[in-house]
């Protein structure tokens, strides 16, 4: 076993600590624990930026045309003369908000942080298979974040074609100013991001397959690891397709090729490109784009499986069914992509096939939800902040999931496609669920990451503000969509001309939504404060604060190179022996041997 091979490096000696310099410890670290923290810090920063952008455009949507000091403070005279943002900037904000949230916070941040932290810890490995590649993965991520941030400060503005960057809009600077340098930077940033994601994912896969400690069979892996493993496979198979789309788009923009362009006259200029297809780009984009939803979601579900079981003091219900559902979801996620394209002019028959596969994916998702709920049944629930966020995740996964049934129905999609109903749907099902999962993960594994405890009371305040704010934003948003409001509209004045009743509904709801958005955003300050304060001043964490079974809690609180003093722990049981009859305590860690006559679950 490769795990044994690592052993040969001589970690048996607990006094093996060599002094590390500041640079090799905090900056160019190859230690999975530090890299996880680096991912988390970068993602939190990016998340705050993206959240701020959303508040800026929420202000515009609720009070269109009214000058605001807040908007002027951030956008300045060039982009918001008199505190009213320009139309182009509105599109830029929407685009960058989406890009950062989906890729930088929920892909890089969620997978990057927790895969790095938990894979070696929970499978009982000294570190990732390749520490160097792992470091490289973070620094590519960092570079791509910088490029994305820089793109917001160029004179012609950031990318403005929506986070889906459909050409021709994204290919033609004559069509919108952001498709100039801003779009170029977007494409370069994402190319680097994809490289980061691929390196990271390959490393995760190799580590899970090869470095599991003695006794850790695949069916004894915690569901978190299963989730990260499957997520990494999804990433490896789908991100390269986005890269190819980005490269072809770069060629269309810079080399005059016509992959995505055909018969276009823009800004009075007749282009010679002929024969390309904008739909080809959409197919390529969504071939990543849909698995991407699950790349975001599955890690969150994995984290919550662990948290919900630990805090219900009860085994996760249907462990094997949970693995099966993850695998089924992952497989199906590759054959549903064109449900984003029902009304793009794609052959309607192809549409029907995708209706079928898309609705199929609801089955494993439903199984997961039922299993979570049954795990709560007859439990002995402890409401840590992490547990509350997990309940929030299950709730938002349901609320967002059920509206998917309407969107997946091609006929009904005609009515709601590209309206706020879609925006509400995916924000709830993938945005909220993944963010809740991420918060749950941070609260739960903070002691493992920093050796300190976060403040529980502030955690409660944060949770309640967040969930009330989030539902306050996204429930009304469904009704904005049901009223027919198209997304990515700078304002809804057009409705004022022909349907004042609908106009009033949209405006009333938009004001409500913006108030809740501001409320929820302010609530995040509580989290930020708690997070950074606790890193420095938090209570020192005990060895196993949540009385949990997985291996990470058997490692010393203080971070050491190689994770465990002496020999690696040996695994004797699955990770969910909570409240097992006959056990002395209500938890039995994985490294405790079976008692005489005791049966594995």
């Amino acid at each position, binding site marked *: 076993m490769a795990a044994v091979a690592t052993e040969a490096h001589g970690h048996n000696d607990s006094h093996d600590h060599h002094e590390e310099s500041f640079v090799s410890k905090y900056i160019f670290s190859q230690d999975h624990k530090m890299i996880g923290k680096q991912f988390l810090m970068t993602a939190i920063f990016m998340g705050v930026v993206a959240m701020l952008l959303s508040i800026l455009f929420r202000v515009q949507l609720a009070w269109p045309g009214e000058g605001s*000091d807040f908007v002027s403070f951030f956008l300045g005279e060039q982009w918001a003369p008199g505190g009213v943002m320009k139309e182009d900037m509105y599109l830029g904000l929407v685009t960058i908000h989406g890009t950062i949230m989906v890729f930088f916070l929920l892909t890089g941040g969620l997978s990057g942080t927790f895969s790095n932290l938990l894979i070696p810890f929970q499978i009982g490995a000294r570190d990732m298979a390749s520490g160097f590649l792992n470091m490289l993965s973070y620094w590519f991520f960092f570079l791509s974040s910088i490029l994305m941030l820089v793109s917001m400060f160029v004179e012609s503005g950031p990318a403005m074609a929506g986070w889906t960057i459909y050409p021709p809009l994204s290919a033609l600077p004559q069509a919108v100013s952001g498709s100039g340098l801003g779009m170029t930077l977007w494409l370069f940033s994402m190319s680097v991001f994809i490289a980061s994601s691929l390196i990271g994912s390959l490393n995760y896969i190799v580590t899970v397959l090869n470095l599991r400690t003695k006794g850790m069979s695949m069916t004894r892996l915690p569901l978190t690891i299963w989730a990260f493993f499957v997520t990494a496979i999804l990433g490896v198979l789908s991100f390269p397709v986005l890269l190819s789309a980005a490269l072809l788009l770069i060629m269309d923009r810079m080399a005059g090729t016509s992959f995505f362009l055909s018969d276009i006259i823009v800004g009075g200029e007749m282009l010679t490109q002929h024969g390309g297809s*904008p739909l080809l780009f959409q197919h390529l984009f969504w071939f990543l784009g849909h698995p991407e939803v699950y790349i975001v979601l599955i890690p969150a579900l994995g984290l919550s499986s662990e948290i919900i079981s630990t805090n219900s003091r009860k085994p996760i*219900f249907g462990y094997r069914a949970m693995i099966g559902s993850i695998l089924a979801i992952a497989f199906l996620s590759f054959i549903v992509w064109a449900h984003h394209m029902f009304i793009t002019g794609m052959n309607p028959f192809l549409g029907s096939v995708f209706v079928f596969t898309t609705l199929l994916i609801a*089955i494993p998702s439903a199984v997961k939800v039922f299993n979570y709920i049954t795990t709560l049944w007859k439990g002995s629930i402890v409401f840590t902040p992490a547990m509350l966020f997990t309940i929030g995740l299950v709730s938002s996964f349901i609320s967002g999931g059920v509206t998917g049934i309407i969107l997946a129905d091609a*006929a009904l999609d005609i009515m709601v496609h590209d309206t706020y109903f879609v925006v509400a749907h995916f924000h709830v099902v993938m945005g909220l669920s993944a963010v809740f999962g991420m918060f749950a993960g941070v609260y739960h594994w903070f002691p493992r990451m920093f050796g300190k405890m976060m403040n529980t009371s502030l955690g409660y305040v944060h949770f309640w503000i967040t969930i009330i704010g989030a539902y306050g934003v996204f429930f009304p948003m469904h009704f904005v969509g*049901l009223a027919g409001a198209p997304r*990515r509209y700078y304002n809804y004045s057009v409705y004022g001309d022909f349907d004042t009743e609908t106009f009033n509904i949209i405006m009333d709801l938009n004001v409500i939504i913006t108030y809740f958005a501001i409320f929820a955003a302010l609530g995040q300050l509580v989290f930020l404060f708690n997070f950074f304060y606790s890193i420095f001043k938090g209570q020192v964490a005990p060895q196993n604060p949540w009385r949990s079974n997985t291996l990470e809690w058997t490692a010393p609180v203080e971070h050491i190179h190689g994770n465990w003093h002496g020999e690696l722990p040996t695994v004797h049981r699955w990770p969910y022996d909570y409240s097992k009859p006959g056990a002395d305590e209500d938890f039995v860690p994985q490294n405790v041997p079976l008692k005489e006559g005791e049966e594995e679950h």
Partner: protein
Amino acid sequence: MESKLLIIAVIILGVIAVTRLMKVYDLSSKLGNKNEAEISERHNRLNANLLLLFCASLFIGFLWLIVHFGWSGRGPAASAHGHGLDVLYNVNFAIVLFVFFLTHIFLFYFAFKYVRKPGVKAYYFTHSNKLEVIWTAVPAVVLFIIIIFGLRSWNTITDDAAPEAIRLELFSKQFDWTARYSGTDNRLGKFDYKLTTDNNELALLTTNTIDSAIQNMDYGINGIHDLEAKLNNPELVVSAKERSDMMTTLDRKGRLIRLLHQMKGRHDSKNDAYAWDDIIQKDTLYLCKGTPYELSFRSKDVIHSAYFPEFRVQMNTVPGFPTRFKFTPDITTKEYQDANKDSDFNFALLCNKICGGSHYKMKMAVVVLSPVEYKAWMKTKSLATFKDKYFAKAE
């Protein structure tokens, strides 16, 4: 500027205040020997109760939204297939609501009921094949039904139009719509984007429009001759950038004109008639109640989306790739206004695919007339065909 300073000051003071509060909290919790890993009974109970309360408020808020904003915003359907869609939609929504309420009741009730109680141990329950089979099979059956009904409507809606359906084209560009009626022969004239000139904005294909496009490419402003003259003029001072731009344009126009000449060679003048009788209409789209329409869509620059909320019609318009949608308006504007007691109401065609800065302003008014009114309106257009307008402008 003052307001910016004020904002910064508030932020800084806020952070200081919270830090101080934390200090106090920390000291008091140290005195009380509080351990962050131990959740007290009081906190545990409080959160369990709050979860139940939250679930109730969620339901109440949701029902309030349904009552207040429910289905009214979109208005009743105004097309033949739209009514069926609305029914399908309501059925699906009923299923969605049922599942939402049921699972949430279980989720929050269990969370509340099974909160930790001293002396009560959790029940070791790892799996149950029976339960798992049930809740795999039940959703599968329900989804199967949803799929069948959904696909039936989808197939009918996207099916080919009847031969007698009126052909109508919607042409989109940043940031407006133009409609083209197929005229007396109910056949839309062909087009090619290279034929676009000031006098032929929709790039329709006739012998005359090909000639004038060639003429324009050769001798128009910034045409090939114009550019060559400029580039060869030693007196004209231009920057290197301008010069290279002109060379690129010249090169592009050289390629385009070759294609135009080929087109001219292939063109059969018998087809001209299809285009000449087309009627081009801006600003307002007039439709006839009860008439089936076969819409075809075209875009000049980027992707747009033709979106008629009340007709339940939506289709992207894609440059270089024609798209279509068929529908039958079945209520006139007047009738719709009366039925909903809203005399200001009008149908509209909006753009529903991000297409640039003024995306949100891209619209066309739509009026559905009774057959009698429609006939009368068409009569006013009999001398406004493409041919009439083309030659009027050419003179």
